[in-house]
């Protein structure tokens, strides 16, 4: 799944229900995280739903590797979008990248609100932090 694909699918879905249906389908394409990796240390805090996130660097390619999962279907779909956006970027590229602009253009900006229950913002912040650290 790539971001062009995602953008296209979302722009073709009219109404929030259709958008969420697509988002949940994106989530279905995200591989499930092995139970062994669903550990507390990987949990992103500040989410009402559970989100496990691993951010790593492919040393040879100098590209970010992201693995994530959630116990909710919508957040998992949003994670799929985030991963599609960040995966394959170098840490430098990632730290320049604005998930806000992306979510804005996808019409999903409300998911980046500071509402604590949401946590998408916490996920993005955490990826940015790690990217900055690796950069």
């Amino acid at each position, binding site marked *: 799944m790539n971001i062009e694909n995602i953008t296209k699918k979302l722009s073709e879905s009219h109404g929030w229900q259709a958008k969420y249906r697509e988002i*949940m389908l994106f989530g279905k394409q995200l591989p499930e995280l092995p139970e062994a990796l669903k550990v507390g240390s990987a949990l992103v805090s500040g989410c009402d739903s559970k989100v496990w996130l691993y951010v790593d660097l492919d040393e040879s390619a100098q590209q970010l590797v992201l693995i994530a999962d959630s116990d*909710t*279907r*919508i957040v998992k779909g949003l994670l799929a979008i985030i991963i599609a956006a960040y995966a394959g970027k170098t840490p430098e590229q990632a730290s320049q990248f604005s998930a806000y602009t992306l979510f804005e253009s996808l019409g999903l900006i409300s998911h980046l609100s500071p509402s604590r229950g949401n946590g998408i913002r916490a996920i993005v912040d955490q990826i940015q932090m790690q990217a900055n650290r690796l950069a």
Partner: protein
Amino acid sequence: MTDIHSLRDDFPILDKSLNGQPLCYLDSAATAQKPNKVIDVIKTFYQAENSNVHRGLHTLSKNATNRYEAARETIAKFLNVSAKEIVWTSGATESLNFLAHGLSQALNENSKIAISPFEHHANIVPWQEACKRTGAQLLVLPMLENGVLDEAGAISLLQTHKPDILSIGHVSNALGNIHPIESLIKACKTLGTKTVIDGAQSFMHLRPDLVALDCDFYVFSAHKALGPTGVGGLYGRYNLLNTLPVYKTGGEMIQEVTFAHSTYRDAPGKFEPGTPNISGVIGLAAAVDYLNNISPSALQRYERALYQSLLQQLNQIKGVTVYGDTQNNVGIVSFNYKNEHHYDLATLLNTYGVAVRSGHHCAQPLMNMLNVNGTVRASLAFYNNEADVEHFINALKATIELLD
């Protein structure tokens, strides 16, 4: 007395639309909506009456002080207690912190504090902190398997342990259960156990008569009872209240200050340092005035009928599990659908204009005991109607279709 059906028109927000749909507000347990009268009182205060209270001699200040103190009378009358037994705070959370601070001064390693398994974090964490400070032990009353308080078990636990304090919610915010606090308070009386009632969820729905209840303390939040945010209060039996230590200090609560030493006034003054939430207190009084124009029994009948209708329609949807006490309930349905996540349900319901809560409802220990990580919670108030119930049920059916 007004016809309940017409009251909805007093709430301007209920006319709004959410996501292109008429708003279906089923989140009154989080915060209640405000009638025009309350909004107008606050607006008029700032447009024409704003002044600091107490030490002012000018007319604005005198008028504001009169309004502020008259509000104390209004709330006291509503709860059937004396004005001097009402302390203003910033809300139920602060009220509970104040009481946990004050009542724990007398505790030690041999002391015990009892709470129920249904408590909101605001009625758990302050007592945990008190236990940390004093070495006291926190006891949790037992629950039946169906998410109902085990009344007999609770009374027997109280009798065995004779705790120093019982602090319990009148109504569970997560499930809507109305707890049998009358019998628990009665048991506590014979045991010398002080009783604190968290009335955040009962103030508006049940309008308790505190003399009849005979509790020692009762806390509430204005915003859950048609009033503004940032204000609430507590009732305390005067002789107990007046002996509590001060929690916050500052201006207005003092008798005399020198650099060496300060002396404090009597309750409630000594517990209200600084500039209070004047417009908040006046707004709360307007909310109570509004409630006073509604017959309590008619209101409860109306809310109960609406709840039964909602519950019945919800139970007809296969795969729905409803938690808690569906017999004694203020009008909250807390549920899950199959293995779907409450987050997904609530997010999709929102696309249909339905405002519900999802999650642990600040009652994580209860969720653990119910073996869920959260629920979807739809909570009713008298300004909801059958159209809201229908709106909600239709949205839920559509949501389920999307998910299945």
